[in-house]
């Protein structure tokens, strides 16, 4: 909402209050002023001039040489506008003036003739081109006779105005008008409101004899009023009115259209003018459109309607899309003599839906959508009639032809002083509270222990006592509400166990050198299927996706994390270790909401540690990823029941991928990306993991006890065995544990060897086994015996031999 500071003064006295102060006042009162526009800033030397003589430029047939009286002197200016030869009073920018767009006017010579200044068009003065009336394009401004030669032209045009741009909250439909904003200022400043003039003359003819109004559904059109105005002369509206429309961001058209817009901006009630003679009948009928029915709107577009749209018709064909846009067939044009002036109330939801569907959101539809002042509709019609009589020469016919009844909006709400103070924490007394209510224009009736407050019909947003409490608070000043602390029973705030574990996992991964990434949950259908843990799950789809790339919800984190890897790779960030934690989404048959499962994923590429003066770079590998996963599981308290199984997964290297198994359940995987996949996606060699986090977030064991330190020494035995290369380390380890019995404390693999010192197809695994008996010192013979058992078992089960 654009609010002209000058225009505002028609309704409330602003003497002694600067535009900045008004802006601050409004903002602190709940109408947030986003921006203060000063279109004239820095523009000096723009004056009213009178063309005393003009003639064509001898060497340029499109230019006119004008002698312009500027009051203090007469100067010669060359002008290219087609209306220059016949123009009288004009706007002149003198040499030295800086016009918008940093354009400095200089005295110059055009084809041998002096030109000292410029005669201006509106857009040259900073008025946006789409706010200049169509027929004014490329024309210089022609000022009326009362413009005083030599005086400040910006002031005359009202371009020295200051415009406040208000960012309205959706509840304050009452402030979608100059008057509405003025009411707020009146309350905030405690100054009276000046109501605009509506008393017009009337000819003896009755409107009711000229037109009838029929409303088919009162729910759609609670009120429809039509006035008839004869003998109008279509011409440009007065310049001051045009400039006010411009300040409000509307383009002047002609006096009739401008007056309907002007009254809408003033009162908030949209109006529409039809050409009476071209309406097509003498009856106005409102109804729902027929499915597939078409009409051509004012913008010359053919619109296909449906039964959700309300239309105004002549009993036969649509003449307007209610509240949204008029029809072209009975538009007010240059030859229009009589008009039908519509002032109505339409169902806000219908108007909103139609405006949305047809993409015709306008100043008018916005106001209908938000709801109108029930008692303002007829007043607005009378105000427009007054202006049409005054500025379009109209003869206003007697009366208004109506259908429906204006709902008498006389909301009453009861409120007590105690309720105000307990809700706000204030200590207001009765008198000052009542004063605030009066300033707001509310009716106050004292019922002893409470008030009955009647709410003016323009304030549709006030329905319950809390609404009134807010009104009181904003006029009193939110600043003046004290600062207190809640008095309630104390309790310790806390994070849940799961939240703590998630934080622990994050800290571990960060400590291990990974950077946390956050990616989008929405992805493409193709990507959502990559790396998913559940083979056959379907996608959770968005009904109206914005793009192919954001069509379904992710089933795994990796595809998006890999997007981040390639984003970085394209920027030469090559050494990457990223992780992400977040939800993935799987349909939940029979349930409305999908399953949201919490996942952790990681991706590594380039070097794990960079080369330094004392070591070579260490590239990432499978065991980088695996080491992180192992460490993470240990951090989360999963020390038992974890194993890794050879896995085959579509996008992973068949020889370098493993499933992570916890208590017999596959909870994720680790692997190198398949070379074919990385080649296709333009990814570097990348190692990844993804885990279903839910399975890992076990309840913290609160009964955990420490293990007493052993009183007897542990004994360590190292040995190496040679096995077939296909036998996995975990198989060997399993046999060792099995054979070693209860004294085994730890088995560590410290070397793996394949190569020239061994038969082809064989590998050597070197282990360090630690034995411990908590009760006594183990003797050497006992260890030798266990050791023998281990070697025997390895031999019989895996064909292993002890390496000498």
């Amino acid at each position: 909402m654009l609010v002209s500071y000058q225009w505002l003064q028609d309704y409330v006295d602003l003497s002694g209050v600067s535009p900045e102060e008004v802006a601050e006042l409004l903002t602190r009162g709940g109408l947030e002023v986003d921006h203060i526009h000063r279109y004239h800033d820095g523009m000096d030397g723009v004056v009213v001039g009178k063309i005393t003589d003009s003639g064509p430029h001898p060497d340029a047939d499109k230019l006119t040489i004008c002698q312009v009286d500027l009051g203090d002197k007469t100067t010669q200016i060359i002008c290219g506008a087609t209306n220059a030869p016949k123009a009288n009073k004009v706007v002149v920018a003198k040499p030295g003036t800086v016009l918008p767009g940093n354009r400095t006017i200089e005295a110059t010579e055009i084809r041998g003739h002096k030109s000292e200044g410029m005669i201006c068009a509106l857009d040259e003065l900073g008025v946006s081109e789409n706010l200049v009336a169509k027929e004014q394009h490329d024309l210089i401004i022609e000022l009326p006779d009362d413009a005083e030669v030599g005086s400040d032209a910006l002031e005359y045009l009202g371009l020295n105005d200051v415009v406040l741009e208000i960012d309205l909250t959706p509840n304050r439909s009452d402030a979608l008008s100059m008057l509405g904003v003025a009411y707020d200022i009146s309350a905030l400043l405690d100054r009276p409101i000046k109501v605009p003039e509506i008393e017009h003359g009337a000819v003896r003819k009755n409107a009711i004899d000229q037109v009838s109004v029929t409303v088919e559904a009162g729910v759609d059109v609670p009120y429809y009023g039509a006035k008839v105005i004869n003998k109008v002369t279509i011409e440009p509206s007065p310049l001051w009115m045009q400039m006010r429309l411009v300040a409000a961001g509307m383009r002047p058209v002609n006096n009739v259209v401008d007056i309907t817009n002007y009254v809408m901006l003033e009162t908030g009630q949209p109006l529409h003018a039809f050409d009476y003679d071209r309406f097509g009948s003498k009856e106005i009928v409102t109804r729902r459109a027929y499915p597939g029915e078409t009409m051509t709107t004012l913008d010359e577009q053919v619109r296909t309607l449906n039964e959700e749209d309300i239309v105004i018709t002549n009993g036969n064909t649509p003449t307007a899309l209610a509240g949204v846009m008029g029809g072209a067939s009975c538009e007010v044009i240059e030859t229009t003599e009589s008009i039908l002036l519509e002032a109505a109330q339409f169902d806000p939801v219908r108007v909103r839906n139609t405006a949305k569907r047809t993409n015709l959101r306008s100043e008018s539809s916005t106001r209908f959508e938000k709801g109108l002042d029930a008692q303002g509709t007829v007043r607005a019609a009378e105000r427009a009639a007054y202006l049409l009589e005054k500025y379009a020469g109209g003869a206003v016919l007697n009366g208004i032809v109506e259908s429906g009844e204006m709902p008498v909006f006389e909301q009453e709400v009861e409120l007590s002083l105690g309720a105000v103070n307990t809700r706000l924490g204030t200590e207001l007394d009765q008198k000052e509270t009542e004063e605030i209510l009066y300033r707001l224009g509310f009716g106050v009736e004292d019922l002893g222990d409470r008030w009955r407050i009647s709410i003016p019909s323009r304030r549709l947003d006030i329905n319950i006592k809390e609404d009134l409490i807010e009104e009181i608070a904003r006029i009193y000043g939110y600043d003046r509400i004290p600062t207190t602390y809640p008095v309630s029973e104390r309790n310790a705030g806390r994070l849940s166990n799961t939240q703590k574990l998630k934080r622990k996992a994050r800290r571990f991964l960060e400590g291990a050198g990974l950077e946390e990434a956050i990616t989008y949950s929405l992805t493409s259908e193709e990507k959502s299927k990559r790396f998913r843990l559940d083979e056959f799950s379907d996608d959770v789809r968005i009904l109206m996706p914005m793009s192919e790339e954001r069509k379904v919800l992710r089933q795994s984190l990796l595809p998006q994390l890999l997007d981040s890897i390639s984003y970085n790779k394209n920027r030469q960030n090559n050494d990457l270790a990223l992780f992400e934690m977040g939800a993935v989404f799987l349909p939940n048959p029979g349930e409305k909401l999908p399953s949201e499962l919490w996942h952790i994923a990681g991706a590594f590429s380039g070097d794990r540690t960079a080369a330094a003066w004392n070591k070579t770079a260490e590239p990432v590998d499978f065991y980088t990823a695996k080491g992180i996963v192992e460490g993470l599981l240990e951090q989360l308290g999963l020390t038992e029941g974890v194993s890794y199984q050879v896995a085959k997964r579509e996008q992973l290297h068949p020889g370098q991928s493993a499933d992570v198994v916890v208590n017999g359940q596959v909870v994720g995987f680790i692997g190198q990306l398949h070379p074919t996949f990385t080649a296709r996606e333009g990814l570097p060699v990348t190692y990844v993991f993804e885990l279903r986090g839910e399975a890992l977030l076990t309840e913290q064991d609160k009964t955990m006890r420490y293990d007493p330190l052993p009183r007897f020494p542990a004994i360590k035995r190292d040995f190496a065995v040679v096995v077939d290369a296909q036998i996995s380390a975990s198989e060997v380890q399993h046999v060792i544990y099995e054979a070693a019995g209860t004294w085994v404390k730890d088995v560590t693999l410290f070397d793996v060897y394949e190569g020239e010192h061994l038969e082809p197809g064989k590998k050597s695994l070197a282990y360090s086994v630690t034995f411990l008996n908590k009760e006594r010192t183990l003797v050497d013979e006992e260890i030798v015996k266990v050791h023998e058992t281990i070697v025997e078992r390895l031999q019989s089960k895996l064909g292993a031999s002890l390496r000498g």
Partner: protein
Amino acid sequence: MIDRLEELKLEAQSAVTSSQDKKELEQVRINYLGKKGPITEVLRGMGKLSAEERPVVGQKANEVREEIQASIDSKQAFFEEAELLEKLSAEKIDVTLPGKKVEAGSPHPLTAVVEQIEDIFVGLGFEVTEGPEVELDYYNFEMMNLPADHPARDMQDTFYVSEDTLLRTQTSPVQARTLQAAKGEGPVRIICPGKVYRRDEDDATHSHQFMQIEGLYVDKHVRMSDLKGVFDTFVKEYFGSDRAIRLRPSYFPFTEPSAEIDVSCGVCGGDGCRVCKQSGWIEVLGSGMVHPRVLEMNGFDPDVYSGFAFGMGVERFAMLKYGIDDIRHFYTNDTRFLSQFKHV
């Protein structure tokens, strides 16, 4: 004989002094104190001495022996000290070379901000509550006093999954769920962080996915002045003790009265600058007293209970705190961006 011993002592001490290394010193020891050395010889010849002379010479011989040994020990210590110094000097390194780096990663700035805010509110007695990102229209809108035709639904264009399920547009559905679970019994003190989604084209200031933290405090006798107190504490804790807040009337369907909370500008200290658009204030969060309809619909008696609710954008907080100018940085995960947040 006494004289001979004295002579030997001087001779030996001179040999110790002139010895050049441990080896020479050892030779001196063998020469004078060894089994075949002159002192042993003297002692061996004592048999020829008189009974009176014998103890005197014996004592003298032992004295001389000890003195020579002391000289040798001291010289030995000198050689060892010198050797150690030489060794240490050979082991000298350039301590200005970089250390063996332990490279830590970093939290995402949004996570960092969420955790900072969570910690402040946990300290104020709040619990952290989460909820699903795909939500029922019922919790996301209806229970937040946004019925189907409410114009404010336009403010937040929604990704629908079906007619009645959607990607939540705010984390307030968690408030509704928590209130309903509390079955009309206060107090309820929660903050709800999480991802939310709106149909926006991604650009420098818009993102179709972003993070929010909403909060709710419902109890008997909660006043708007309490909201001011809690946020004065929060803002001073989060932005710094020199920062002030101001409340402005605003509108949210689920609160009445509603307030926008501004924080005094940290760049200009309130005098007005480019960052605060010359106002001296920066809008940081929306808040208000819980609308009686919301309390009622979610099972709380509005005549007994009151409360305040608030919501803030995590990206906005991160952008303000770290001076980040493009919201897309949060989701492209450029490691040159992420690695800057190691120390936060």
